[in-house]
Each structure stands twice: as C-alpha cells, then as structure tokens.
C-alpha cells in the first residue's frame, strides 16, 4: 500500500491517513474509511466530528487532497439511544436497552450526507511536519527545525539506512523515513539498489507498540522497523540481539538519556558480534541531549572511540508573527488598535483643538446662563489638516506592518552532538590502493600528449633517479646524526 506520507497521489483514498486542518498548529489525524469502522452508529458511515462541524468520510474520499470540505448535517443525538454499550457510560447502560429499536439497528447502506448551513475544513495529506504538530505526545518531541538540520548534517539521503534509538513519539521517525525513502520494498526492483530504511529502537514496550501501530496505519511497513529493545544492553542488530543481521547503517540518531552507554556498540569491531555500521561508508552520528553534562560525557566517549570532527551545536528557531499595528487618533473602536497620536504635530493639533472645543463650550455655557452676551465672534474653528477625516482605505491595509517573535518560544530544545567515523582502512587496503595508484607516478599536464612508451621510459628513469637519491640520503643520514650530536 503506498503511504500518503510519501506518495499521496492526487485524491484521498480509503484507508489513507488524512489530516483535517483545524488551526495553524492543530490538525486532526483520521484514517479515511468507507465503512463505519468503530460501529459508532452514524447513518453516514464514519464521521469526523470537530468544532467546525461534522464531516462524514464519504464526503472526503476520492476528493483531491487540499480540498475545502463543507460540513454535513449529521445526527449526533439519536445514535446515543441506539444502544452501543461500548460507547455508553456505565451508568447509562440500563437505559439503553429500553430505547433501542430494531429499525435503527441495521441501516442497510450509508446515508448520503446533507450539507450543513455552515462550517468547513481543509483536508490535507500528511507530511512529517504536520504529523509532528498533531501526533499524540508520549515523550518530548523532536521538532522540524531540529530534525531538518540533523538529517541534513547526517547526510541522510534516499537509499540510506538510519538507526534511530529512542523512537519516542515517532516524530523523527517520520522525517527520517521521508529522507531515506527511494522505493517500497514490495515493488519489483528494476535496478540493483539498496532501499532506504529506518531501524527504530525503543526500550519502552508500550511506546514501541504504539509507534509500530502508527507506522502500519501510515503505510510505512517495511520502510521502518520498530524494535522493542534496550540498546545499552543489547546493541543494534535487527531481530535477535545476538544473531540478528547488522542493519548496516550509514547514519545514527540517538535520543537517549545516556548516549555514551550505547556508543560502545557503534564501532567498527564491537566485542560482541557484528558491527551495526555499514563497512563501506562513513558513519555519521548525532546525539540529542538536553543537558550539558550529558554532552560532555558523550563527547568524551566519542573521543575514546575514535570518532572524528566532533562538534556540538544548538538550534534556535522561532516563529515570527506578522501583523498590522494600528496607532492613531482615528482608530477608535477597532480591535487591537491603540488610540494615540501618530506624530508630535498631531498631538499638538489635538491639544489645540481640545482647547478650542472647550472654549466654545465655555462660551456657549456662559451665553446660555445669560452671563455674557454673544459677542458675535465666530465660535467655529477650522480643523487642522492632521485631524481631518482621511479617505477611506481597506481595513486590511491600514496600520504599520510589524513583525515580532511568537509569544512562546522554545529557547532550548537540546544540544546536538555530531561526529563521524571514517571507514576502516587497513594496511592491506592501503597496499592495494598504492598498487592501483602508484604513489610516485606524476605526469606533467603538458606532457599528456606523449606516447605510452615514452611515459614508461621516463617513469623508469625517474624511478632510478629516486632510488639513487634515496641511497644518497641514506648515506648522508648517519653523517647528519654525527653533526647533531
């Protein structure tokens, strides 16, 4: 089954996982079914209920991804009297039997949904980013800014194998499988190529089980292998810890409380059995630890185990909100706006106008009380330019465009330690290489036009010369020593 995460196609199909977009950071994951999966008793088949209305799955199946779906009128009330003990609270149980009628018990086919007056949703195919925001949290989640950087630095590419230890909530797992994916295992392979794979380990049995279920629901079976294992103890070989095959990993991500305890297994020649690393490539590793003490211990162990290019970074990411900030004396009654003069001139004009108005009203009051004769002076005054009504502009373009960090930022996620382990390079390999690429064979770029014979002759001459020079230095060497002493 193709996974909607990787190959969603153009329309939503039954059994695809889909995300119903609720808010910027909130989506409701649901698996599309063309039947009433949990026997919830809706006439329309399986229904997703949200605060924006009810959405029978039949209105979503076969629609293009990304479609705006209108809510439907779904009778959510009467099914409660239908008598579905599984869905009823215990204290309601005795009533249910009495109200169940045979007519409601078996609806032969799903009712065609009727559009509701209001309410809509957008239906998306899942991406690892969207899944990260909507997944059920079981542990601390690795978010997109971290995992995007990690996967990039680990050089995880299609066809690679990555070990993930500490599957946790499965956020990184989904991002990793997208990065390594280059074909489904059940497809016939035209070329002899390695298929990308994620080997995921989790020591918490229940969590491992949940991740496994999710992977299966998302159509990622065969691409992700979830193993329930304590990797500190039992290392990383898939299947049986002792005899199982090596995953031959190119990259490793450790989100464990004590990564240094797992590192002893991640070497080229472990004490127990086969190395889990791919012998033909460089291995890249990243550990994800929130505390500095963990980092120091990890790096110390890495140095002892000959990891190279060890570096530690932290990723600081924040979202930026953009809005229009309205400040002005004319902004009365507008939500979020501040009534305040925009310029000094406007403030001065406002003071002057207020004074004029006060004067006018004082005079009027005096005249009214007969204390003073109307002196015939014009009480009106000309409103200054800055305070006059401005020509109407659409409200969406008013105010100054400003940007600021979102109100809650993640100031620290974890420290990322990166390192790499080059391929093993034995003396034997080196000798092979020297045979293949003779060390002292150097051609001048200009001489490349020479015939093979000529080159050979010259090489021989060079070699003889080198031999002579070597002998000469050998003779000189003892003399040099004498001088030095």
């Amino acid at each position: 089954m193709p996974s909607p995460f990787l190959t969603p196609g153009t329309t939503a199909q039954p059994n695809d996982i889909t995300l119903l977009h609720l808010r910027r950071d909130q989506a409701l994951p649901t698996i599309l079914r063309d039947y009433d999966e949990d026997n919830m008793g809706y006439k329309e088949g399986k229904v997703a209920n949200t605060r924006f209305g009810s959405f029978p799955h039949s209105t979503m199946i076969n629609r293009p991804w990304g479609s705006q779906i209108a809510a439907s009128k779904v009778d959510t009330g009467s099914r409660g009297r239908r008598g579905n003990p599984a869905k009823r609270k215990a204290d309601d149980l005795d009533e249910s039997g009495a109200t169940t009628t045979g007519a409601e018990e078996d609806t032969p086919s799903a009712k065609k949904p009727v559009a509701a007056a209001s309410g809509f949703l957008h239906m998306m195919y899942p991406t690892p980013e969207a899944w990260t925001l909507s997944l059920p949290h079981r542990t601390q989640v690795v978010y997109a800014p971290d995992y995007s950087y990690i996967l990039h630095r680990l050089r995880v590419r299609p066809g690679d194998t990555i070990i993930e230890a500490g599957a946790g909530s499965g956020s990184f797992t989904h991002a990793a499988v997208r990065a390594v994916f280059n074909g489904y295992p059940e497809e016939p392979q035209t070329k002899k190529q390695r298929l990308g794979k994620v080997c995921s380990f989790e020591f918490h049995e229940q969590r491992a089980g949940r991740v496994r279920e999710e992977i299966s629901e998302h159509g990622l079976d065969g691409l992700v292998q979830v193993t329930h294992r304590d990797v500190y103890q039992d290392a990383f070989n898939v299947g049986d810890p002792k005899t199982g095959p090596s995953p031959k990993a190119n990259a490793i991500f450790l989100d464990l409380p004590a990564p240094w305890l797992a590192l002893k297994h991640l070497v080229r020649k472990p004490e127990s059995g086969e190395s889990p690393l791919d012998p033909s490539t460089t291995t890249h590793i990243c550990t994800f630890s929130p505390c500095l003490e963990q980092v120091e211990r990890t790096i110390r162990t890495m140095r002892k185990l000959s990891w190279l290019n060890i570096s530690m970074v932290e990723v600081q990411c924040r979202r930026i909100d953009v809005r229009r900030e309205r400040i002005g004396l004319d902004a009365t009654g507008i939500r979020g706006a501040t009534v305040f003069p925009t310029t000094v001139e406007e403030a001065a004009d406002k003071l002057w106008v207020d004074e004029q108005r006060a004067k006018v009203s004082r005079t009027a009051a005096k005249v009214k009380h007969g204390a003073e004769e109307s002196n015939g002076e014009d009480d009106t005054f000309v409103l200054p330019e800055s305070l006059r009504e401005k020509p109407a502009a659409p409200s969406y373009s008013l105010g100054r465009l400003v940007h600021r960090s979102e109100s809650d930022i993640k100031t620290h996620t974890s420290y990322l330690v990166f390192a790499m382990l080059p391929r093993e390079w034995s003396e034997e390999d080196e000798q092979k290489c020297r045979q293949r690429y003779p060390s002292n064979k150097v051609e001048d770029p200009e001489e490349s036009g020479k015939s093979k014979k000529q080159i050979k002759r010259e090489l021989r001459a060079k070699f003889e010369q080198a031999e002579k020079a070597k002998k000469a230095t050998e003779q000189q060497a003892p003399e040099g020593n004498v001088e030095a002493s």
Partner: protein
Amino acid sequence: MHSYIRPSQYCVVQLPSDQLKIIQPVPNTIVQLGKYGSFAANQILGRPFYLTFEILDTPEPDGYGLRIVSATELHAETLIEEAEADGEGDDGEPGEEMPTRTNKGINDDNSAQRLTMEEIEELKKESGAAGRDIVAKIMESHSTIDQKTAFSLAKYTLRKRKKYIKRFTIIPLDVSTLANYMLAEKDAGRTLELRDEHIGLLGCFGNVHSAGSSNVEAIPDVTPNGRYIVVDDTGGLIVAAMAERMGILYPHDEDEEEDLPSSGDANQEQQVPAKPSRRQHIQGMSASGNTITVISAQAQANLSLLKYFGYDTNSPDETHPLHTHLKSLSWLQLVDPSRDPILSAEPPTLPDEELAEMKSNKRQAYYFKRNRYLKNKAVSDEARAGGFNGLIVGTLFEPSSVLKHAVPLLAGSSQVSIYSPNIEPLVELMDLYSVARRTAYINRKRDLESRAPVGGEADLSSLYEEFTLNPSLILSPSLHHTRVRPWQVLPGRTHPMMTGRGGAEGYLFHAIRVIPTEESVQAAGNFRKKRKLETTSTPASDKDVVMLS
C-alpha cells in the same frame, strides 16, 4: 558515491587553518596546498574520506609521502587532559590542590618567546624539521610556558599548530560542504548566504523527497509524482540541495557497492564513463516523475554550481540523473509562450525525402532546431498543466510575483517553502496572505458574483486588480527564523563559540496550497467564545467569514 575518493571527483581539502579548498584529484597530478605544501593526487585516490593526512618530509621508499594521522593522535591532547582530570578526581586530596594558575606573570609583549622570527624561518627551511618539531621547539623556547593557564596554553598550541603543521583532511563535496565553502571562502551573497540550517528546513518545509522508483506508476491511483518547482537564484545551490534530497544529485550511485578491483591501471580510471553512442541518445528533461522544474529569469538558468556534482549545464553528461530529471524553462516560456522566440516559431516538419537530399550540416541544424523546439514545448506544456507537488524558492524576485504565477500550478495540499536572506520581503508576503485580506477577498468575490447577470460570468477584473495574490489558495502561512549556535566542548572549558558569522539572518516562509470550494461556505465554530455569534442575514461582516488558520 562518498565511500572513497574517486579519480577526478571534486572534493574539499580542509587545511589546519580550517580553510576549505576545492580540488579535483586527477590521477598522476600534484595538488598544491600553498604554504602547507603539496602532495600527489595518486596518494589519496581510492582512500576513504575524512582521513587526516600529514605530509611527510621524507617519503617512503615507494614514493608515498603521506601519513594517515590516527584519531587517537588527533584527540591526543584532550584525551591526556581528560585522563589527568580523572586522575585528580580519584586521588586528589583536598589539602594538596595545585595552585590555580593565572595570567599575573605574563607580559603582553613578545618577550617571552625566545626564538626570533629569523630562527623560526631557519627551522622551517631546515630539511629535517617537520611541522610538529617546529611547534615543539617553539613551545620549548617559550620562557613562561609553565605559567600559562591550561586554557591559554591550549590556545597557544593550537595557534602555532595551525600555522606550522602540514596536515589536511579530505572531505566529500556535498551540498552541506559546498554551502559552507561558499559562505567561508567565496562571496556568500552569491548563494544568498544560505546556511546548513536553512537548507535543511527549506527542504523539509517543501516536503521534498524521492518519489521512489519509477514503478510507482504501476500502483493504481498514484500518478507519477515528486514534481517540484524550484526558483533558484543561488547559482544552483538550492537545486543541488533538493536534488540531493530526491536522490538525483550524485552520478555514481549504482556502483556504490562495488569493491576496489585488486589490480588495474590508473589510466583506466581516468576515462569518464563512456558516453553513450548516438543511437542510445537519452533525451534530456524527459523524466515524468521525481523531477525538478527550474523556472529562471534568464533564457538559460544559471546553475553553475552543479558542475561540482558532475553536471555541467552547457555540456550535460547524459548518464547523470539530472540530465533527465532536471527541467529548465524561463518565466517567459511559462507565462506567455507565444512571445518566446523558441516556442513561438515551430520549425516545420520536413518530409524524409527532403531531408535525405539535404547536406549533412543542414540536416543536423534541422534536427537540432526541431529537437530543441520539441523539448522546450514539452517542458513548457507540462509546467503549464500544473499539478506540481511543491514550490521551493530562493530568489531575488519579489516573492509575491513568483507566487502569483507558481501557486496556481501546485496540486492541492502541496507545500510552499521560500527562503529569503532578509525578512522584509517575507513580512510583506505574510501581509498579502493575512486573515483580514483573505476575508476581504472572499467577501468581495462573493459580492461580485452575486451581482453577475443571471447565467452569465461575473466580472472579476476589479478583484484581481485589488488583490495581486489570491489569498484563498494558501492556508496557514508562517514565517520562521532558525540559527545554529556552535559550542566548544573541552574538559572544563565548555562554552558557546566566542565569534561567529554575521550578515544575513535568513528567514523561511511556509504555507500549504489548498483548493477552495466553488460553492460559498461559511465558517462555523466557537472559536470566538466571548462574543455572541452574530446572526445577521448578510454574512458580509468581517468577523463571520474568518477562515480557519
């Protein structure tokens, strides 16, 4: 691809000064490293990446002049320090603590170093003195070395070593390395100052990944996909990054598992994989899925950085995956093909008899023009048909003008991901997709449609005039900033790096393409709990049709 150093493959040399240098180790040539000396390319070919070599002053008998520096040696100082620290922790009595060293007795001039400049130069010239010895001598001749604190001592040693030790490390040239090379060694502005963290997030936000093997077409209901639009003004760095994610950047992928043959002439390797003969000619830009469509301001997209990955846009290697999977067209060919010099003038098809009579060079010219036309037409038609799976942008253009033309070409639920070195263009873009603007757009559209003559089309020209972008095609636009902070981790001296690179901060815009329904729908829900729901007969009020975002 990156399991060992291949002949004539571009790779990067990291020098002791942390400088990066791109080299192309052609067999039987010498690679110059400036003041750090030189070495024969043959002496690194076939060896694994990430090994550190030291240039020997006297080569081995067979002429091999390098020494592989082991990891233990590279970490030696820190390991010793750590071991010492452990020792102190174990048996150190509280009473006999070492006096804490300070910089009290150190003068801020060069008087402490007894070796003069001339003497050091002399040392360097001396045949026997390798870099390590020079450093050792310098350390020895420092009169107050024992007064230095551990921290300043480490710094001093490191500084001297960087200057004199002849070591280098060979790193594979991949997207990350190239980005860092462009930042550090070249004009960073050329690549819009893209950093690793931006490249990673740009690809993830764009949901860019391999579409799997071509057999995906065999699965019912899954049309070939993995088609991405890329707008790239970084000289090809973004295209390379996306191609890397899609598995179409590196050429040698198939012989990945091959073992080094035990013997063979180096000359054999020199030959690039034999070009296919004309009969096997592979039509460029012909793949149907897992493709990158580059739309550029020029007639020929500037993707010069792709040469480092073995793909030269001017003389493409037909065996390179990018040859078929990278499609390039100009904005003119997308927006208005009738004005494009190639697409507007179709070379007439000539009958075979006429062709047979032609002179060979004329016939060649005919085929060239005809093929060029067909190729361009196919790419333009395919792009204009839309249905793309993602839009990745890093451009000098006004982002809104790119989105105006590119967003309608995206399939529903696909992602838009834009990088900008500066925030201002993206802030303006966010405003064009603001909730207030979207509401106004929907209301105006509904208003115009209700005024349309019965059975006739509504005149929406004033709508398009007021709103350059259609805000109802985009859902949940967001703006992000990401920055990586490097740390130094050494025993007892862990802290963030003291200096770093300034310049562009770099921002990313992300949004999702959606398909609005044709019927007018009203929002529902209790997302404004405090307010009474206004139940007016005319739903024109701003508050009622706020879309969910």
